[in-house]
């Protein structure tokens, strides 16, 4: 089955997310759709999958124009999608999830669970997955959940399969396995559209590459292109992907974590005997696949995690047992991984966001009142210093781009008297320009003699930014290694095999 998108245009208000986009997916071919965050890749696929209605252009299957008014139509036409955020219901079983939407039934609409289970087993067997159809999805590891998502996409005999940023949550090994599955599907004659911004993956599997920038197709790339060539095409200017930094000159180890363990609300152990230390003027990167305890580790450090045991010391003072405010007051700067959820109040102005953590003290507070005059002066100063592109300090945070939002968070967190800087996935979802800015700020913070802890899920960022790398797996630190450790070794460590 051949799929063609012709002149697709999609607008949101004044913003053009897709501008006259053309794309052809042929059977037995992996077609990569490459672009920066916000380039319009996901919008395009949502149009194709019937989730959005295009404002212009048409979709053709085997050269015949089709019209999708919803995902049901797209599925019926043989299009399946593996979503970036899994479309799985955590409290349902695998079989229930997979059959949802086209349930096998007996008389009177009664579910035929046996048939659903059989179908899951059949498809699993074909790809060598070992999945129990009666397992509750929410209790499965993320990698397995993705396989459920793939089974779900395949079960309707899909001939075109869309993978939307599928590797974000996978270990390098799981990523390799996914690539193998994609190749297997290609051999079987499936047309695959693979959406990603990871150049390495593109180079590995792509038969064809279409590059999208600011909603427009900027051209097709040769699958043999180098990473820098692809990146330049994606960003629209020459890019140097390396982080510029001088070798570290570490001082005293002022931040120490010893025997740290933590438990989740349900009582599961999420951190298991964590030990490490960071020196002044050094960046330690915590590498690992998302969901292996990194979030809990940063939460434990800033005092947000309820059940912890062990010791976290900054300048000889114990942080465990202190609340968030007390920890921040000891000089900890913290950039959370989800800036819109945890870092900013979207409805607040830039100025208000800048005083979020210190509204109760001088000079921001004057008695019980807010010191509006000082706040204005402070905000204007930070706006300049951090090059936040906004109409003014009264702009709402929600109106800013992701990069500018992150600059506001950095401006706030770096404007305290710091003794430790912690940033969790500080460049997630940012454009290349902002990524460069954030990296510069982090390196500058290190160079001012502060211990820095960065959580990174992408190996490239980990190796480029870190002076040392600690790899986490299932709540444990597998090992702490120098940043020039080979990728393959790091990849193995991320799967729990110690170096």
């Amino acid at each position, binding site marked *: 089955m051949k799929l063609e998108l012709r002149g697709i245009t999609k607008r949101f208000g004044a913003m053009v997310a897709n501008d006259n986009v053309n794309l052809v997916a042929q059977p037995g071919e992996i077609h990569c759709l490459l672009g920066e965050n916000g380039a319009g890749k996901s919008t395009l696929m949502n149009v194709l999958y019937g989730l959005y209605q295009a404002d212009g252009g048409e979709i053709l299957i085997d050269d015949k124009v089709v019209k999708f008014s919803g995902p049901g139509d797209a599925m019926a036409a043989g299009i399946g999608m593996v979503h970036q955020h899994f479309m799985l219901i955590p409290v349902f079983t695998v079989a229930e999830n997979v059959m949802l939407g086209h349930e096998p039934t007996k008389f009177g609409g009664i579910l035929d669970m046996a048939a659903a289970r059989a179908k899951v087993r059949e498809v699993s067997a074909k790809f060598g997955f070992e999945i129990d159809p009666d397992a509750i999805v929410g209790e499965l590891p993320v990698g397995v959940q993705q396989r459920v998502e793939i089974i779900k996409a395949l079960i309707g005999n899909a001939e075109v399969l869309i993978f939307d940023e599928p590797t974000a949550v996978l270990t390098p090994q799981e990523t390799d396995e996914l690539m193998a599955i994609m190749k297997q599907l290609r051999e079987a004659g499936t047309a695959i559209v693979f959406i990603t911004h990871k150049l390495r993956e593109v180079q590995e599997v792509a038969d064809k590459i279409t590059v999208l920038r600011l909603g427009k197709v900027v051209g097709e790339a040769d699958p043999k292109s180098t990473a820098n060539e692809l990146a330049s095409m994606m960003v629209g200017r020459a890019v140097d992907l390396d982080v510029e930094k001088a070798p570290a000159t570490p001082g005293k180890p002022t931040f120490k974590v010893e025997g740290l363990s933590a438990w989740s609300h349900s009582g599961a152990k999420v951190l298991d005997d964590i030990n490490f230390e960071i020196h002044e003027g050094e960046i330690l990167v915590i590498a690992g696949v998302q969901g292996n305890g990194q979030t809990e580790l940063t939460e434990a450090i800033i005092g947000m995690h309820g059940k912890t045991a062990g010791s976290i010391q900054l300048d000889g003072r114990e942080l465990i047992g202190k609340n968030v405010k007390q920890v921040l007051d000891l000089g900890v700067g913290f950039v959370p991984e989800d800036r819109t*959820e945890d870092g900013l109040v979207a409805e607040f102005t830039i100025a208000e966001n800048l005083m979020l953590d210190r509204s109760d003290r001088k000079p921001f507070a004057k008695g019980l009142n807010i010191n509006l005059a000082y706040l204005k002066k402070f905000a204007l100063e930070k706006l300049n210093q951090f090059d936040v592109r906004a109409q003014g300090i009264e702009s709402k945070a929600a109106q800013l781009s992701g990069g500018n939002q992150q600059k506001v968070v950095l401006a706030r967190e770096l404007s305290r008297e710091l003794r430790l800087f912690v940033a969790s996935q500080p460049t997630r979802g940012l454009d290349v320009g902002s990524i460069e800015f954030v990296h510069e700020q982090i390196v500058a913070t290190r160079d001012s003699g502060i211990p820095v802890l960065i959580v990174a899920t992408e190996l490239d960022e980990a190796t480029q930014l870190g002076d040392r790398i600690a790899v986490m797996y299932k709540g444990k630190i597998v090992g702490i290694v120098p940043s020039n450790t080979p990728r393959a070794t790091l990849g193995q460590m991320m799967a729990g095999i110690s170096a």
Partner: protein
Amino acid sequence: MKRVMKEFTGGSAFLSILAVIASLVVGGILIALSSPEVQSTATYLTARPSDFFQALWNSVFGAYDAMFRGAIFNYKAQDTLQMIKPITETLAYATPITMSGLGLAVAFRSGLFNIGATGQIIFGAMFAGWVGIYVDLPWYVHFPLAVLAGVLGGGLFGALVGFLKATTGANEVIVTIMFNYIAVLLLGYLLKTPILQAPGAVNPISPPVKDSAKYVFFLGDQFRLHGGVFAMIIAVVFTWWLLNRSTLGFRFRALGHNPNAAKVAGINIGLTYILVMGISGALSGLAGTSQILGSEQVLTLGVAASYGFDAITVALLGRSNPWGVLVAGLLFGGLRAGAVTMQANQGVPVDIVLVVQSLIVLFIAAPPLVRAIFRVKVSKEVAA
């Protein structure tokens, strides 16, 4: 929830006015339908349509005219005093509604859906009532003490909800609904025991509060308006200051918009929940004092009237903005006051106010619906 709050605070006053008009129109239709004259003239509508329209006009205009005369200015009254009495009635009704509405506004702005105004008013009235009835002190100590007790009573009952949410994560909507019923039943029980029941009384009713604990009836005894109206103004200014100028209010709003970010920024969420609900309940407690130390002066099961619900609608109509709440409170006070005259003069049941009131909230909550009714074009700004 977040989105809704935005809807309420981000919409325009214009749409609010349209919503009120639309609701009054629907109310007018109901009034007309229920009028016997309209019904009888409708039977020969084709023969003599003028009769029908005359009857229609009479019933609807008559009703709203009576409402105007009951709520704002009675131009048919004998003397000046009687002419201006309606506006004082409106203010008297508006006082507890606005106070309690302010309390809910504080909670809404902080992201907490407090529908427990009824229970908090009752607790305020019970505490203030007990001090007002049984304590013997000179007025300059007794009155402030009674008001303070009421504020404390409502505040503690509210803070209990905040405490439950902070410690157990209990949903405040469910808890406040349940607490309303518990408060009513507790009041019912206490009014049957010597703790609050008047000696020798058969009905659930308390002795009257002492004069030394009452609000001042500054216009004289023939008016129901009392000093609570000044407390209301103070409460409006306080709430405005709290939400817009104080650092505490800043933390309240941060919690309301994004509790996660507030938490990461070191704001003590649990304590803030308790403070928000405490202050919210305290303002409803103040409304309770206005009832027991002002309008009612004895404690009965009806002490909270329907003010708990009115407060919700007022807070929503005023878009949780203190001055907006005041305007909305005056409007609903006027509806209440006018409805009494409307029933007396035109035989239109006061229940029409409930209908109009709930329609106003529904319309306000759904701007697209109001726009569709009035065919208002969507401006660019709203669309983006």
